[in-house]
């Protein structure tokens, strides 16, 4: 393993993380809800309760790039996957997060912050398979 110092951005990563933590804190202390994106989407698809608040949270997400662009250009959004890869990845993420009850936000941020053993197990699992997938794709298959 070599460290990629050229792309290492500790301060923006920490500051962005702190904002994510602040947003999750606001949502749980005021709305009593977990800021888990896959959970919010899945619950809206299945017409669960709290449709208004959940929709507004997602609208806030959608509005973020608009607010951002008032001050600076969007960061480079450089997808390295073609359409077939994106469809496959989307399907896997959709099915996986629903069976696994959460994604990076619900388990990785909210779940770990409330010391949930289920979220710790889930986070270890999706990090491990993410590392393994990139290893197989980049170093074994060369795509």
């Amino acid at each position, binding site marked *: 393993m070599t460290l990629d110092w050229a792309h*290492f951005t500790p301060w923006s*990563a920490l500051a962005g993380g702190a904002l994510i933590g602040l947003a999750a804190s606001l949502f749980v202390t005021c709305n009593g809800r977990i800021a888990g994106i896959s959970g919010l989407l899945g619950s809206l698809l299945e017409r669960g309760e709290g449709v208004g608040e959940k929709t507004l949270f997602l609208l806030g997400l959608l509005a973020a790039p608009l607010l951002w662009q008032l001050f600076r250009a969007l960061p480079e959004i450089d997808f390295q*996957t073609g359409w077939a890869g*994106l469809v496959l990845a989307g399907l896997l993420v959709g099915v996986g997060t629903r069976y696994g009850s959460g994604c990076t936000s619900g388990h990785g941020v909210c779940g770990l912050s409330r010391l949930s053993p289920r979220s710790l197990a889930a986070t270890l699992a999706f990090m491990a398979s993410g590392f393994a997938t990139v290893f197989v794709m980049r170093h074994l298959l060369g795509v």
Partner: protein
Amino acid sequence: MRKLTAFLAGLVFGIGLLLAGMAAPAKVLGFLDLAGAWDPSLALVMGGAIGVAFLPFSWAKRRQRSLLDAPMQLPQKRELDRRLIAGSLVFGIGWGIAGICPGPAVTLLFSGHWQPLLFVLSMLAGMLLFAVLERRRDH
């Protein structure tokens, strides 16, 4: 008021994702590529988020109602089961292929790129598939 805090929470969350680099697939893949030139930045995203959210969540766990008098809806399940682990493993494979997870994908929906739209539509299809399979399982 709760509608306003929900919108604000989503807005701040999205700004955080953009600033942190979670919405840049090349950056995410650089973090997931342990065997290549590894960019550890995204580990600090999780660190920063948990550092800020830990105390508010400890407070929330002890409450029945939120500050704005909404019921506190925290997951109650405790047991580790096969669905949790298998589902999370499958999610990680998709994350590793595309370099994007649900939050940033939704955030980028109207960024002028076609990839987030295709990814989100496929993800919603996957979620619908789950809902259909679950309904069939219940009958």
